[in-house]
């Protein structure tokens, strides 16, 4: 009986007290549907959780929220390459301290980079860096020189906030004294927020340092990331004032806007791209035929998908693998002629010309993905469009890991899969394109084109940025003209905020949300 009395009392008290009061502005709480890897050590798959790691750690090279290199945002205040582009010298900011009080020096930078390319590392670009780096020199505490085996332009970007976590600077002495496992549980960085606690599956709490060179005196004393998988719950805690920011689905934006919650949108956060699974010899029939690939593209009504499936929070895409944040870096323009019309009649004619007047059987794997709860509905819609032009599209519901296994094992040649590929800058895009280019021994290929392979190989050896940009533009042009895949829409990701949060630019950098900018005390 005591328990029931307690529950009843509690409910009465809750009733009397009314809604939870809005949180003090000194605390920022972010409710997210997924923490992904949930790691605290940047080299352990930390690329995908940059949004909280970048608060704890500083990057060697800073990046503005719109993805441009920044001499104000990183440990390096300037950098230069030797004439042969094989020695990159970084001049380090003086007086930067880790949360332990130790001063950050070039030895820490060297240690961090060595650790990022060590066997322990599962970061996004550890592989290319292992291949590229010949030596790391520390001629002075405020100077580090990275020596590469081949001429390259990409070192500063690889070590910047715009890409993965290889550029995060970690405390050498702390890690050597306490070990990797201790660091992975209680990380120490030099960023504007220090680690307080992690309860796996629940939350990660950070506390602000008093004054930081990146953001001055922070607006928030603490930042807490709460893991709340169910959207109804995230919205409920936002309404109760227990969260200041929550990721929400595209379909609930209107309702929340109606209630007065500001919506912050990361435009074109990902491209929803479909691809054809290759077989051991490259393109399987009938995908080998360019007309078939074009027909499949023309059958899809992208505008309708953007409106009906993604509640208008998406825009039609027209370039296969067209990661649009890279377009600004390379000067690529998407012309109106590149947009795919929705033309089922022409699609049917192309199929007939290609020898498939009655269509052909096509397996379409349907799955949801993080950030894509609409995954299955989307796959159903696309399969429906293809059925209308006579293609016997068969939906196969699976979860993504199961499809991925079939794809890389080449056990579903000719089938179609998809992914909401996170948008990124030109180097990140180049790495993806290189990865997806065909090779008999490669698992993750989706494009088999000798001309594109040649351009990719040229980029690796190129040190002239204009030539690289030109090659990248040509790659995109060819991807589009050959219809290598079905680019469907660019997805915009909405975040609902509390009514008192204020101005926040979540930026356009892969896997980062720039909460430090939000917390900044600098005018």
């Amino acid at each position: 009986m005591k328990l029931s009395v307690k529950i009843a009392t509690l409910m009465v008290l809750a009733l009397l007290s009314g809604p939870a009061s809005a949180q003090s502005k000194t605390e920022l709480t972010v409710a997210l549907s997924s923490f992904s890897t949930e790691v605290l050590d940047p080299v352990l798959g930390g690329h995908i959780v940059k949004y909280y790691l970048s608060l704890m750690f500083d990057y060697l090279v800073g990046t503005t929220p719109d993805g441009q290199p920044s001499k104000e945002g990183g440990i390096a205040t300037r950098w230069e390459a030797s004439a042969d582009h094989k020695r990159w010298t970084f001049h380090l900011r003086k007086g930067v301290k880790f949360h332990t009080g130790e001063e950050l020096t070039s030895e820490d930078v060297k240690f961090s980079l060595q650790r990022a390319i060590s066997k322990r590392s599962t970061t996004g670009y550890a592989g290319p860096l292992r291949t590229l780096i010949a030596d790391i020199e520390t001629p002075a505490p405020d100077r580090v020189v990275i020596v590469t085996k081949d001429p390259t332009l990409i070192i500063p970007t690889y070590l910047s906030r715009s890409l993965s976590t290889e550029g995060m600077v970690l405390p050498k002495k702390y890690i050597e004294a306490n070990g990797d496992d201790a660091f992975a549980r209680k990380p120490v960085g030099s960023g504007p927020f220090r680690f307080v606690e992690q309860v796996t599956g629940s939350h990660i709490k950070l506390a602000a340092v008093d004054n930081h060179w990146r953001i001055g005196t922070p607006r928030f004393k603490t930042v807490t990331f709460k893991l709340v998988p169910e959207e109804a719950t995230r919205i409920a805690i936002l309404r109760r004032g227990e969260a200041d920011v929550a990721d929400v689905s595209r379909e609930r934006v209107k309702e929340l806007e109606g209630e007065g919650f500001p919506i912050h949108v990361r435009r074109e956060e990902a491209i929803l791209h479909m691809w054809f699974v290759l077989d051991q010899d490259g393109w399987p029939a009938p995908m080998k035929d360019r007309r078939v690939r074009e027909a499949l593209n023309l059958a899809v009504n992208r505008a309708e998908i953007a409106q009906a499936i993604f509640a208008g929070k998406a825009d039609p895409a027209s370039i296969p693998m067209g990661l649009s944040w890279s377009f600004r870096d390379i000067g690529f323009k998407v012309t109106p002629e590149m947009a795919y019309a929705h033309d089922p009649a022409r699609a049917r004619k192309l199929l007939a010309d290609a020898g498939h007047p009655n269509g052909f059987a096509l397996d379409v794997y349907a799955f949801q993905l993080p950030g894509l709860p609409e995954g299955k509905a989307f796959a159903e819609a696309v399969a429906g469009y293809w059925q209308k032009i006579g293609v016997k599209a068969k939906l196969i519901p699976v979860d993504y890991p199961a499809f991925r296994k079939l794809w890389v094992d080449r056990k579903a040649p000719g089938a179609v899969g998809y992914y909401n590929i996170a948008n990124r800058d030109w180097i990140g895009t180049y790495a993806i394109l290189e990865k997806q280019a065909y090779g008999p021994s490669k698992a993750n290929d989706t494009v088999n084109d000798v001309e594109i392979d040649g351009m990719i190989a040229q980029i690796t050896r190129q040190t002239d940025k204009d030539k690289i940009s030109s090659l990248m533009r040509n790659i995109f042009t060819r991807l589009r003209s050959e219809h290598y895949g079905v680019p469907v829409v660019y997805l915009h990701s909405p975040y609902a905020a509390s009514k008192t949060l204020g101005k926040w630019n979540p930026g356009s950098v892969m896997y980062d949300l720039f909460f430090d900018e939000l917390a900044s005390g600098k005018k």
Partner: protein
Amino acid sequence: MLRFVLSRLVQSLVALAILSVVVFVLARTTGDPLHLILPMSATEEDYAHARRYLGLDRPYVEQYLSFAGKAITGDFGTSIRARRPVSELIRERLPNSLRLATFAMGVTILVAFPLGVLAAVNKGTAIDRAAQVVAVLGQSLPTFWVAIVLVEFVAGRLQWLPAGGVDGFSSYVLPGLTLGWFVVAGLMRLLRSGMLEVLDSEYVKLARVKGVIEPRVVWVHALKNALIPVVTFAAIYFSILVTTAIVVETVFAWPGLGRLAYEGISSRDFPVIQAVVLTTAALVAVVNLSVDCLYALIDPRIRYVR
């Protein structure tokens, strides 16, 4: 009695050993965890490095023997996703699940006992019918739907109680009610039918004839004898609440064992899947063994079966 307990213990250990092989094999048939933890841009070399570092390049038999040998000592390896010792993750999550299950069971007992007894005593009346409605709703309404309604309405709109997370006593109420309601239905019906049977027995009639007051007949003499199957049911359901609350834990952002299992499965985190399955199986085995022993104590004939 000792022989009986030992025999059941051996059976439980054999079941766990077989389960460890089954879960080891099944976990590896549906995908490679590296495809989920490495980025799309990772190279073949990155995959080879990670596979070697995580020991996933070793033959399956070697991996199994290594896993089984360590599991006996409570070491379930390191999570591939979170890169922390799995035993640590279990230690963090299991208490949350146990606490929630205890709360839910408390709610269940508080509601089901009076309802079951009142329904039996007032058979065929409005009270009985109301209790039946509670039972039918509890068993027929999907837990997910109940949870979402409570979150949307009680937490989101009325703002009476927290919507999610573990933060003090009040955070137990909504997930506890959601979990408990389903069990209330079963427990109440079981108690009602048990009470009806007992209330019709000779010794109850004798107690009434001897002038024992009705509340004492019902709440002391009858209830005590109707409780035996109910206690068994509650004990087994308690282990089920601990191990299968995935939906409730997900909706209420409750960091329990169910969610850990879900996270492990969706990220193909073999060590976590293996550890959670074996931990929950061990829990169920312990509860079943305890119930078996309880029965054996109550009814000596059970000890001589087989």
